[in-house]
């Protein structure tokens, strides 16, 4: 991967709202070069979306999240892909990973209440015929997410002027 692409990605990974003009100045290249690289990486699927990091706990909106370990029976010819697809198509599922270790899929899910999440697991997920077992872990507190520490200090501890 060329340097300019890597520089763009590492910069917008932390701040996707940065404007193209500013990005060009910071990287020391022409604005069109940045615009072209962004467009190309979007169409190649390297950039898959521009999302917002929200600490829902600080709002009055109730959200419940859980991580679910799922053991499944892989299917002939399709491996895990077919069952993964059946799971990730549910809109309440926010991520699905195939992982190594004691179980197969790690599913994260978001709902409005404990009841809603539990219902999803017992009624939708566990009843899929290739699912052998599930273990649901409700998230109690989010310390760090996507590289962002949720309750981080912001004050500058330095002296205001120093040599």
């Amino acid at each position, binding site marked *: 991967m060329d340097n300019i692409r890597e520089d763009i990605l590492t*910069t917008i990974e932390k701040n996707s709202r940065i404007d193209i003009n500013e990005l060009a100045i910071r*990287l020391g290249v022409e604005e069109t070069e940045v615009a072209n690289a962004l467009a190309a990486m979007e169409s190649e699927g390297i950039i898959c979306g521009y999302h917002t990091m929200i600490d829902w706990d600080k709002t009055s909106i109730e959200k419940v999240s859980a991580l679910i370990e799922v053991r499944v029976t892989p299917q002939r010819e399709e491996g895990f892909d077919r069952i993964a697809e059946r799971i990730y198509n549910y809109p309440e599922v926010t991520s699905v990973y195939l992982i190594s270790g004691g179980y197969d899929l790690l599913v994260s899910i978001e709902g409005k209440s404990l009841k809603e999440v539990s219902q999803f697991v017992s009624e939708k997920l566990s009843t899929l015929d290739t699912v052998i077992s599930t273990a649901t872990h409700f998230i109690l507190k989010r310390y760090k997410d996507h590289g962002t520490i949720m309750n981080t200090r912001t004050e500058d501890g330095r002296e*205001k*002027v*120093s*040599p």
Partner: protein
Amino acid sequence: MRNQLSDTIVNIKPSGIRKFFDIVAEMNDPEVISLGVGEPDFDTPWHIRDEGIYSLEKGKTFYTSNSGLMELRTEICNYLSRRFNVQYDPRKQTLITVGGSEAIDIGLRALINPGDEVIIPQPCYVSYEPCAILTGAKPVIVNLKAENEFRLTAEELEEAITPKTKIVILPFPNNPTGAIMERSDLEAVARVIIEHDLMVMSDEIYAELTYKDKHVSIAEIPGMQERTLLINGFSKAYAMTGWRLGYVCGPEDIIAQMTKIHQFAIMCAPTTSQYAAVEALRNGDEDVDEMRRAYDQRRRYLVHEFRDIGMDCFEPFGAFYVFPSIQRFGMTSDEFATRLLKEQKLAVVPGTAFGDCGEGFLRISYAYSIESLKKAMGRIREFVKTI
């Protein structure tokens, strides 16, 4: 009561930075923002802090040897060889100090006889001149020029040399200008130094923060290692200012004498910091790289902004400062900085804090987040409109 104070100390003028610091402190206004600091905004990378904590948990709370942990000296020599292609013996040519600052002080003390002349290119960091005076040396100031991008030229050096000249201070990458010396610049200066049989004190504390080609140490230039004291440390590269840890490498006989001063005055550098520094050198390359990239983006942004406002600003390739000119506004650096502080609540340091030839310039630090820099540049823009 008779005069209790040393005349030498009393006659040293207080740092220009201090004066500005006092004005800011006196204002005590939470609205004041600053581009005035000379230290990184990053926290020390966690794995380095963790290693310091771990050393405390294990009870490593005693003095180390005077020269510092052998393990650390070895890592330093490996690092200097790997990064800058200079070879030193960790046993006899390396001393761990309390920041680069101590190395500057004891290096001068080990080399100077009263009356010797020390060549100091300015603008530069504030400690060389007073430390030289404390040893009884005569500081000889070379006023670097904006037209040379504040590099030291062979001609400027040649002009400053007298039969009494002993040491040349080489403070590059430079605080406050951000200037660097590239290989060809160093080769030209080295020829003069060798011809006149001088020593060099090369303060390379910002070596990792260069944004053009990789930093070149003057010790790497043929014939120079035996006449160079190479000073570096952990403060800038690894964001470890508060740990107070630096080092100096040089000829065995000089390091031996410096170790003597260090042993009587300091005993040893902080033990916790030394253990953390071993981790920094072993596993910190990526952290340095990441911080350098962040600084580089801010540097480009600031140079662009100053030029956009219409303030002359040469492109600095080192440290984390830009040094824009304010000459077209018909104010002194001090007036400009004071009014900027009072009217727009933005603290910057007047160039004169780093030597008289800093007149007409400001030191702007980019050891701040892009968001902070944007806010500050907005205030400079407003200020420039009103004058």
